[in-house]
């Protein structure tokens, strides 16, 4: 593999390995559909595309920074108390995000309600800190964090897109379904706005994803 000859000299910023860190979570290592982490928030805040977008950006920010901080501190953190250190770092970053959201986009912050706080217990973040940032240099950790958060964001946006389109007939708050369709008798599916449809939408996304990539099929 190409990893052997790059290990000697200084690795370029976007080496093949680092690119994979960024791109794998978008597809075959997707944190939601494959690793099953961080499901809670995917479902609750995807009624509209706008809230999904804000949430995705918040998670990318928190995760990238948390991974860098833990990775920088990885040699000084005593292993016995690492979980509480990780929680403290994440919680501080989430407080920052929460205050920023409250200051600049108050209405979205109200809609997200407790789910901003719940980024703290989003298992993707803890999972990546444990599995990657504790053993790797800051730059790869940053890429890994951003990549995983982006993989999470992609699913979030897909679910948000379909739920808002089918449920309210709008995207980002703008009506997109042309009026003549309503005249012909088309109606918004109010069911898509209700909580259970989020689960079923994610179920279908997983179905499509695994159908296209047969290696992921659960054989147990």
């Amino acid at each position: 593999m190409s990893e052997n000859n790059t290990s000697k000299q200084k690795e370029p910023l976007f080496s093949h390995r680092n690119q994979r860190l960024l791109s794998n979570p978008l597809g075959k290592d997707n944190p939601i559909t494959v690793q099953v982490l961080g499901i809670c928030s995917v479902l609750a805040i995807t009624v509209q595309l706008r809230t999904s977008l804000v949430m995705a950006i918040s998670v990318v920010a928190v995760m990238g920074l948390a991974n860098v901080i833990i990775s920088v501190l990885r040699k000084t953190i005593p292993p016995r108390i690492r979980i509480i250190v990780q929680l403290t770092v994440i919680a501080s970053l989430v407080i920052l995000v929460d205050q920023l959201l409250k200051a600049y986009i108050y209405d979205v912050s109200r809609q997200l309600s407790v789910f901003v706080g719940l980024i703290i217990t989003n298992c993707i973040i803890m999972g990546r800190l444990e599995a990657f940032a504790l053993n790797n240099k800051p730059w790869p950790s940053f890429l890994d964090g951003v990549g995983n958060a982006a993989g999470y964001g992609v699913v979030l946006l897909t679910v948000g897109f379909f739920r808002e389109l089918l449920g309210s007939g709008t995207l980002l708050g703008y009506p997109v379904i042309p009026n003549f369709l309503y005249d012909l008798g088309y109606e918004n599916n109010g069911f898509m706005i209700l909580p259970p449809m989020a689960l079923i939408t994610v179920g279908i996304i997983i179905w499509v994803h695994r159908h296209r990539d047969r290696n992921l099929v659960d054989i147990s």
Partner: protein
Amino acid sequence: MEDLVSIFVRAIFIDNMVFAYFLGMCSYLAVSRTVNTSVGLGFAVIFVLGITVPINYLLENYILGRGALAWLGPRFASIDLSFLTFIMFIAIIAAMVQLVEMIIEKVSPTLYNTLGIFLPLIAVNCAILGGSLFMQERNFMNIAEAASFGLGSGVGFFLAIVGIAAIREKIRYSAVPAPLRGLGITFIITGLMGIGFMSFMGIEL
């Protein structure tokens, strides 16, 4: 007293942690392969929610909220520490989980063995932090209401996880399309269960 019962029942059926707010989904999906383990996790969640929600209620009302420090004297009445909520709640939860684990280990080794590995996992279960954050949003009148909300949420989670585990044990023998096996079908079943639980909506208590 009626209020307490009504809050309890609402928390179990109408505002169910799993089906209405999707909290605790990670452990819900990961630990629901067999009924036995899911019962263990369910009890641990009831236990920890029943303890942390009232404690965080006290924290919120006597230390963190706007004007909550007034009992220290008039000088402190204007202090608002609510921006510290997240970090304090998660610290309390982590500490309580540790404490509960030690107490159970001392008092009842059998219960400790049943709950086993699930107790430490609970510190990062979103249902626990979510319970405390919802408690903060609902503005309960006193600590008994907060406690009954915490217990009710725990029982709701217990019902959900034991239900899905029972279905997953059966579905292993069914011909599910290959890409849907495991995770996919679990999501769809949870959705259907959620639709079932929606029928409790609109019940006035």
